[in-house]
């Protein structure tokens, strides 16, 4: 017992000050991408063709990036080309699939829920998580939200065991053929009204497995998504920011 208390004192108090204080992220962290202004057509062309996941496209002579497809590669050819750079901004969540596509304009972050939903879920949100072909990095960094550094519980958000107890579903993974029906069953078992959150590049658009024969390209065509959390995997602060934004706490 004494050992335990001694160790407790040594380990100290670790709950983070987020959201009152911004997190400090590693220097090499890759957050919100920035599209360079005034790119020439050939520059855009090289960048667009260099992305294995078709995250980049040219619209009206300008380059656009789709955060629903980008997996934040370290060796992005567009970065080498000077067409794209990664900032350290970890806030990436969006409410609409379209908002994930942007160029040199301002990226539109997720809105809070409407009045009715906020009244229902604003102070207590229970989520059922389903991993549908995820690589376990997304899952691991969601589990981290339960550790004392992030302490998700203090915001009234909790992952629960039964879909019957849940207010929404949070999906990771591209939805393998083999998980499709289990995912839909779990969704169906959640009482209305319910929320759907797509977390990670896989769940949004298939991620690195996009167009593989055994996967669906994310949950977009299967479920009505209320919140998109980009990243591969999303940083825990990205996910936490997303959930707080949804509940109007940021």
């Amino acid at each position: 017992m004494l050992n335990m208390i001694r160790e407790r004192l040594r380990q100290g108090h670790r709950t983070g000050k987020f959201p009152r204080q911004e997190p400090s992220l590693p220097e090499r962290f890759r957050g919100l991408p920035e599209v360079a202004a005034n790119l020439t057509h050939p520059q855009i062309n090289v960048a667009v063709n260099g992305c294995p996941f078709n995250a980049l496209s040219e619209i009206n002579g300008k380059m656009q990036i789709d955060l629903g497809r980008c997996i934040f590669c370290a060796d992005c050819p567009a970065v080498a080309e000077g067409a794209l750079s990664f900032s350290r901004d970890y806030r990436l969540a969006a409410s609409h699939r379209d908002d994930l596509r942007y160029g040199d304009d301002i990226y539109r972050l997720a809105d809070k829920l409407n009045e009715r939903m906020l009244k229902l879920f604003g102070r207590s949100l229970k989520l059922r998580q389903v991993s549908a072909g995820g690589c376990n990095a997304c899952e691991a960094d969601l589990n981290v939200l339960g550790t004392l550094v992030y302490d998700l519980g203090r915001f009234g958000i909790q992952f629960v065991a039964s879909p019957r107890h849940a207010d929404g579903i949070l999906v990771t993974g591209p939805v393998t053929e083999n998980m499709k029906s289990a995912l839909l069953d779990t969704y169906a078992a959640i009482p209305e009204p319910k929320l759907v959150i797509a977390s990670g590049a896989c769940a949004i658009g298939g991620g690195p497995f996009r167009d593989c024969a055994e996967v669906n390209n994310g949950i977009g065509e299967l479920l009505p998504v209320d919140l998109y959390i980009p990243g591969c995997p999303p940083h825990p602060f990205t996910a936490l920011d997303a959930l707080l934004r949804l509940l109007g706490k940021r």
Partner: protein
Amino acid sequence: MNRSKLIRFTHGACISLKELPCLDFTEFRESLLEEIAGDGRVASFFAMPADDGFDLYAILAHDWREEFALLHCRVGDVYPALTPDCPQLHLFEREIAEQYGVLPEGHPWLKPVRFHNSWVDAADIWRRDPQQHPIPGDMDFYRVEGAGVHEVAVGPVHAGVIEPGHFRFQCHGEEVLSLEISLGFQHRGLEPQLIGGPHPASIHQMEAAAGDTTIGHTTAYSQVLESLAGVEVASRAYSVRAIALELERLANHIGDIGAMAGDVGYLPTASFCGRLRGDYLNLTAELCGSRFGRGLVRPGGVAFDLDLPLQEKLLQRLAVLEPETRGAVELCFDSPSVLARFEGTGRLSTDDAETLGLVGVAARACGLMRDARLHHPVAEREFDTPVIDTDGDVFARGNVRRQEIYASHDLIRDLIKRLPEGEDQRSLGPLAADSLALSVCEGWRGEVVHVGITDGAGKLARYKIVDPSFHNWSGLAMVLRGQQISDFPLCNKSFNLSYCGFDL
């Protein structure tokens, strides 16, 4: 046996398929069993379509001789199963049956592995409709009948934030008589994706083969390509990979000890370790921007340098983290109530572990010294302090992790101190045509084995991945026999195996 018919090689070799003898099946079988009897174990076993039938390749590891043996033969769509004589092949043979419709006749346990359609135009072994996608978990489960026997089915969707899988227990009261594990829910079809490659997306798919083993899988993948291209990785990159591999081990081992402590209700260690795990992941993020090592390892080297300021930062952080880690871990191993739950629970004998072909932490906890860092370094050996325990129980698996955590700290410090100067990335030329290369990387769970075979144009014609979980899930099923069903979560955490690494 005619020894010239068998190719022996060391890690990193590129073997020309033209020089590879094709044994007839009887020779193949006898040589294989002889190798196994002579201290060999199966590292990989797979098939590949050929003009007239299928090529079978067996790769056997001889750990103490630090070498591998490669056997090759050709079969039609049916051959006598090897599993009855060599049980560690049981999943490999099921896998081949599922992928190519090749029937291992006399296999005692022939069921689907991942529930996908055959990769070639072949009759389905289980006579399922080839027009329909198989239904996961649709197979005959082993059943125990009798008074008071009942069945418990769990999954695919589990209670926590965990990957999906199906567990079927046959119980008598609280006691588990048998556990059968049916996976495949995470199957993304990774191996067929690589055919015709390497493609631009391949490295990213390897990073996500098992996301918690990103460094392990990308290192194995890169080494295969380097061997096929005849390029030796730059020594600085070799060391940076080794450091990242240890950081990955630290984060996961600490997380596992925390999870095991949590499962027996010992919350101080559970919560300290939860925090510490994140701190180690953050060290990897300092190196490459990603907590899971995404983007670091690339064929030919590493994409990020461990420069001097970063070296100092890592050393400083480790100096703080190490005593905190020791404190958190020792606290739980010092606590009689924890030990009472760990000791004797989920015990696996050395013989069973050997028969099943276990690898990694689970094997070392049963007294089997299997560590690719020690036995099969691709270049200079940097590790000589392997950890072993003999009891094969939850305690032993925890204890191996605990000792390995301490060994990893020393190894990282040492690697940083001796970090060679020079380039960290070399460009790879074309891959050798008609060749085979094998790579082994001791990930935190155990050895990650990749094999690449090229066609006449130097493109990948077959790529085989064996995650340590592929061997080890059978170990978990085995330890549950005669155990209380309420001990399943603890036993499961003590193995902590990968679903997606198994499912591919």
